[in-house]
């Protein structure tokens, strides 16, 4: 093997190890992970929001053709949400603007991610997996407010 070739091979390997180290650092030290397998949760078909602590909530979200239930979620600044997402019909996708939440909503499975809202504002969630003719209209939003007496949801199941 040519020397330059050995050098290139070594540097390439080093680069990849470096990148991989960064991933492990984020996962272990910063606790930033991807969704995992959820088995301790009963299947749900309607959406619910309830408070689990002073600043924490659990939200069960149902995706269906062509709406998220709930479609609007109002929460106070500083809320941490345990988000469970599933689909009632076909595959949908769920991503919250400006936050590290990105979940596939798949029938027959429950997906989970925790998210904290530290800044007031409106954060859209748009469906990002093709789910039929009106896929492009399927979206909702979190509204995060400074002062809020009662968290509320809109567009949930009846």
């Amino acid at each position, binding site marked *: 093997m040519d020397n330059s*070739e050995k050098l290139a091979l070594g540097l390439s390997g080093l680069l990849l190890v470096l990148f991989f180290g960064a991933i492990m650092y984020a996962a272990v030290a910063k606790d930033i992970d991807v969704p995992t397998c959820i088995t301790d949760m009963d299947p749900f078909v309607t959406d619910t929001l309830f408070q689990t602590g002073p600043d924490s909530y659990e939200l069960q979200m149902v995706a269906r053709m062509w709406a998220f239930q709930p479609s609007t979620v109002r929460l106070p600044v500083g809320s941490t949400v345990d988000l469970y997402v599933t689909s009632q019909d076909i595959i949908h996708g769920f991503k919250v603007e400006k936050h590290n939440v990105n979940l596939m909503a798949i029938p027959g499975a429950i997906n989970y991610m925790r998210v904290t809202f530290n800044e007031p504002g409106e954060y859209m969630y748009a469906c990002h997996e093709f789910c039929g003719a009106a896929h492009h209209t399927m979206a909702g939003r979190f509204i995060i407010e400074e002062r809020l007496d009662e968290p509320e949801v809109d567009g949930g199941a009846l």
Partner: protein
Amino acid sequence: MGDYSFRFTKSEKRLVAVLIIIPMVLLFIGVYGGLMQTLFRAGIIQSDPFVGGDYYKGLTFHGVLNAIVFTTFFAVAFGNALIPYSLKKNLNVKVAWTSGILMLVGSVMAAIVILIGEATVLYTFYPPLKAHPLFYIGLTLLVVGSWVASGNWVPMYLQWRKENEGKKTPLAVVGMFTTFIVWFIATLAVAVEILFMLLPWSLGWVDEINVMLARTLFWFFGHPLVYFWLLPAYVMYYVFMPKLAGGKLFSDMAGRLVFMMFIVFSVPVGTHHQYMDPAISSQWKLLHGIFTFAVALPSLITAFTIAASLEYAGKLRGAKGLFGWMWKLPYFKKENWFFAYLITGLIIFIFGGIGGIINASYQMNTVIHNTAWVPGHFHLTVAGPVMLAFLGGSLYLVGQFLNKTIRLKTWAMIAPYIYTIGLLIMSYGLKIGGLMGMPRRTNTGASYANPDSVLYQADWMPYIDLTVIGGSIMFVGIVIYIISFFTTVFSKSNGPEEDAVVTFPISEPLHDEPSTWLRNFKPYIIIAIILIVLSYTPVIYDVLQATYGGSLPYSPDSPVPLR
């Protein structure tokens, strides 16, 4: 080694020409769909002016015709040309034609059901969206046809090995067999998905389907699929490009090592497309992430080896200094139009490769998964280096196999540059849009890009407009190519067919080592199988464990199941 000519039979020549020309028509329909998509997304059109139907029908035939049909045909045609040429043995034409006919019938079948709107399921055909059964049957025939084609090469190769004991297999043959070994392993999973899950379910023989399982089998196939696209392009980079540049392949062993690494690491990585999926434990996702990094290594080796080969060529042409060789390459020589297709692809692949590492990076995938970033990324890979190499290769093949001189060479030479400019603009628009949160596979023109809609996103608009500009320039590039291609096809041939021989630009190695440890596919296939079993058993176990209920079929038009 070096240049030599080989005499193909008339029937072989016809077959290769058919396998290139008919898919070219389908590709043109597919690319037309791409242009329409950019117009839909900006709200310029609301329905397809020629083919009719909505955004998603167009997106389906765009994905299927470009990324599945055209690419598979090219890989088979290229193998049917390069393997006999390199081994100096003729094909069994009966088997070869059978494979070609299976593929043609299957593709046309799938294309028709898509175009009449009975299979608007996109090229990933995730259940529980259901397509017409003929869609699944058509895809199966295409895949089976490709298996038959590659099976036809095996006895030729075994015979060659017997006759040439101790000789190295030509690198082109190693590359083509690698392509089809990866393809064969990958398509086994999609065959299981289609034959045992989707087809009986779409015919109504079974009621319900496990969506996560089908999706996992799809991605077992889906990632190696991208290497099936890439590997024939790599064959051209290693085998043709150094010669076209006027030099030699820097290292023969690097090429062999790269191909073997693709056999080992192509498959146990598919879950990196499912980082955001439920029902798969994150540690298995991480394992697939590690293997994905491993499979980045052969691409980095390729970047080095090809750059070193081009440097050598540039220096032979009198280049001085560290980077002088870059200015000495035959970029705009119309007689060397083929080089233009390969160099543009390599330049694009720098961006494609960086994007790929970002996508593979586990948590970082959260930011981009299923946003417009993703099509931005893969147009820089499959619609970039792969497509350009295949277009250049197609033109070269029809010229050789129909015994014609390439017409409109200046057009042929300039087309990849125009396409590249458009591609970089379009992908930039898609990628930045994606980082802002713009979803992929979405007809933004009817909502997010429509000022009258409550969903309107004003800050996405500049990037949506960039995709229109870039997409239109790409389309112009393709039209210029197609004109040159068909002008060549319909031109008069250079004398009687019997005299015509075929020549490929085969590069000689600069450094040629015995590399005895890289001469046999078998150990690498065995390692691959072990890694696949280790990496997929826990994934499939998780999926079966953590999912509940089954899904009835749905049409894309109604929230009520079809049964």
